[in-house]
Structures are given as C-alpha cells and as structure tokens.
C-alpha cells in the first residue's frame, strides 16, 4: 500500500463496477457528474478508456491510476483488455497523469530489530540460568 493505495468503487450501472486507485482516500459521490448515461450505454473501448483517465484526472489530483473491472460486461471486457498489461496501464497512466508515480515503501522494521536486540539479552540470561540449574541438578 502506498499513499495511492485507496480504491474507490464507482457504481456506474447495476452491472458494472469500476475500482479506481487514486492518490488520496476518498468516498465517491460524483457518479452522475462524471459519467453521462450515454457514455455508459455506448461505451466504445478506446474512447471510454481514454475518457475515463482524462475525466478522473480532471476531477481528482492523481498520483497513480489503476482500473480494475468487477464484472463481465462489454465495457468491462474492453477496459480489462486495455489495462490488463502493466506496460499498457503505465503508458496510459503516464500519458494521462505524467510520470509522477510514487514508489511503495517497505514497512520499517528498525524498532523490531531494536526489540530483538533487547530480547537477545533476556534470552541469553534465561538460557544461562537454565544451563546452571541443569548442571546443579546433575551434580
């Protein structure tokens, strides 16, 4: 997950659901404003794919864009084909947004390592105590 890791589900029609990864988490209210009925009813793949990116760019400030499709409608199939390969997706995203994609940071483990060092001392003491007790028992 990154800053751009929030997916917003836009319910366009009862049959089609678009999950769009955007730069900021938000809940989405603007379906009527963005997509006209004609676009939904006649979704040419090329036009739709390009317009979707452009429209979203207009309405939101993106840092990254991904589109996934949640059903098997014609629109969904076309879009899935368009965005299925990473190369294509990146090209489309970069064309629409600019190459402003943020890298994903790994979670920091430095505090865990510090704690492990502390635990090392504790375990060493416990182990030595156990060894001593065992030796005393055998004598």
């Amino acid at each position, binding site marked *: *997950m*990154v*800053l751009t*890791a*929030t*997916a*917003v*589900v836009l319910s366009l029609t009862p049959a089609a659901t678009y*999950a769009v*990864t955007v730069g*900021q*988490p*938000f*809940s989405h209210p603007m379906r009527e404003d963005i997509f006209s009925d004609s676009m939904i009813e006649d979704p040419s793949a090329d036009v739709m794919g390009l317009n979707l990116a452009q429209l979203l760019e207009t309405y939101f400030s993106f840092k990254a864009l*991904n589109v*996934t499709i*949640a059903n098997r409608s014609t629109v969904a199939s076309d879009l899935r084909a368009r965005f299925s390969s990473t190369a294509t997706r990146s090209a489309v995203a970069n064309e629409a947004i600019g190459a402003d994609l943020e890298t*994903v*940071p*790994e*979670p*920091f*483990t*430095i*505090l*865990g*390592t*510090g*704690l*492990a*060092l502390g*635990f*090392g001392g*504790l*375990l*060493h003491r*416990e*182990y030595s105590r*156990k*060894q001593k007790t*065992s030796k005393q028992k055998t004598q």
Partner: protein
Amino acid sequence: MKAILFTPVRYLKNFQFWLLGIAAGLIAIHLTVTWRFGDINLLGVSVLFWLAVSSLIWRKRSCLNLESGALSSLLGALLVAIVLLKSTSLTGSHFIRLSPFLSAVGLALLASGFKGLKQYWQELTVLFFLGVPQVILSSLSIDTSLITAQFAAFILWYLGFEVSRQGVYINLPGGGVEVYPGCSGLENMAHLLGLAILFLAMFPMNWGQKILAPIVAVTLAFLVNGFRVAFMTVLAASSQLETFEYWHKGGGSLVFSLIAVLLFGLFCLFSIRQQEPVERDTA
C-alpha cells in the same frame, strides 16, 4: 619504550590478527555502505547479525582450525576482493544484501580452507539469512499480495464489516485499499525468518524447535501484516487521511514490526523455558 615499538610488529606476524583486521574492515565497509545507501531496515538487522556472528566466533575462537591451502586462500582472497571492488560502485540493493554472506565465505576460505568451512556453518547460515532470501524472492518475483488481501478481507468479514474483494483490492462501503507487493508482508516475513535462524544459532534447540521456530516466525509476520492491512482498509474507508498516513508511513507503521518481534520473542522465551538444555555446538 622498546615493548611499545615492537608489540605491533609481533601482532602483524600473527595470522589471526590479519584475519581479525580483514573481518573488522569488511563489517565496517558493509555497515557504511548500507548506511550510505539509506536502507535503515537492513542497517539495523545487519548490526544485530554482525554482533551475533562475532559473538559466535568469539565463543569458539580457541578451537578453530586455522589452516588453509593455496587454492582456497586464492579463492577466498578473490571473493573478498570482489566484495571490496563492488562496494565502491553500487548500482542496487541486491549486492548489499549478498555481500555479508560472500565476505564470510571468502574470509572462512582464507582462514580455514575448504575443509574448515564446516566449522563456520552456523555463522554462514545466519549471514545467508541476513539478505539472500530477499534477493531470491525479489529475483523470482514472488508476490503474496493476493493471499494477504484474502486474509485481510477475511478478518474484516469476520469482524462484521461489509467487505468485498476483487483481487488485491479490498473494498468497504466508504473506500478501500489496494495491497501492493511492498505491503504484502514479505519484508516482515524475511525479517522474522532471519531472527528465527539467529535464535536457533545462538541458543541450541531440539529438532522440534528447529523446525517450529521458522514456521512460527513466518506465520506471525503474515498474521500481523494481515491485521495491519485490515486496519488500513478501515482507516481508508473512514476517510481519515492523516491517521491513515500516520499508520501507513509514519511512526505508527513501526509498531507492527514491533508487535511481530514481541510475539516471536515471547515464543522464544517460552521455548527456552520449556526445553531441556542442549549442548552448544562449538565445532
């Protein structure tokens, strides 16, 4: 005055001090390069692992066989030279992760030759798990994002949220998250696996514990990361951007690895208390 002048010369003739000097130099170079590279996670783990390996070697210093042949010495020197040369021009993080293991193999060959390598199997194993698994996982492009997303969605469903999942996307009514490879938990799993190997090298356990400890480590890391992703999803869905950022990339993100290590530390403590003492392998 005489003694002060000649003592260093006497040390220089001692083969062991040369080895100690080379080892200290290699460790210092590795830590410096890691620090300069900016990999804080690796730097912390490296300090811990180098301390542990030094302690293991110190423990068995009196019974080490330090006899090496010409071929093994040449190969060892070559490996050390490669590490030194490569350290001057780093192009990626893979070599920083590989160099401790390569340095240790080179130094072991210099010190004890091919036949003496088995004396250092614990130290070599520990240094192998310092960085080599991450390089292998990265090279094979292994990605557990989907499994992590499935587990996080399961947690949310079990807790009563109206959750839906499409691949690596987890959605709640107010929003959702996409589980990227960086958040799949692989880093934490490799981290805890390394700690498990370190624990087994430092504290000899029976065979049951030797098998159980790595499994528990990886499982704990996966579970803690799953809960983390579920928590992030809830924060994203509630549109609390600042809180989301704090727990995702800020100080809050440190807590999750802390929890995983704490749980694994408690497991190690329990293991030591439970089992009968096993003789330390000093050979």
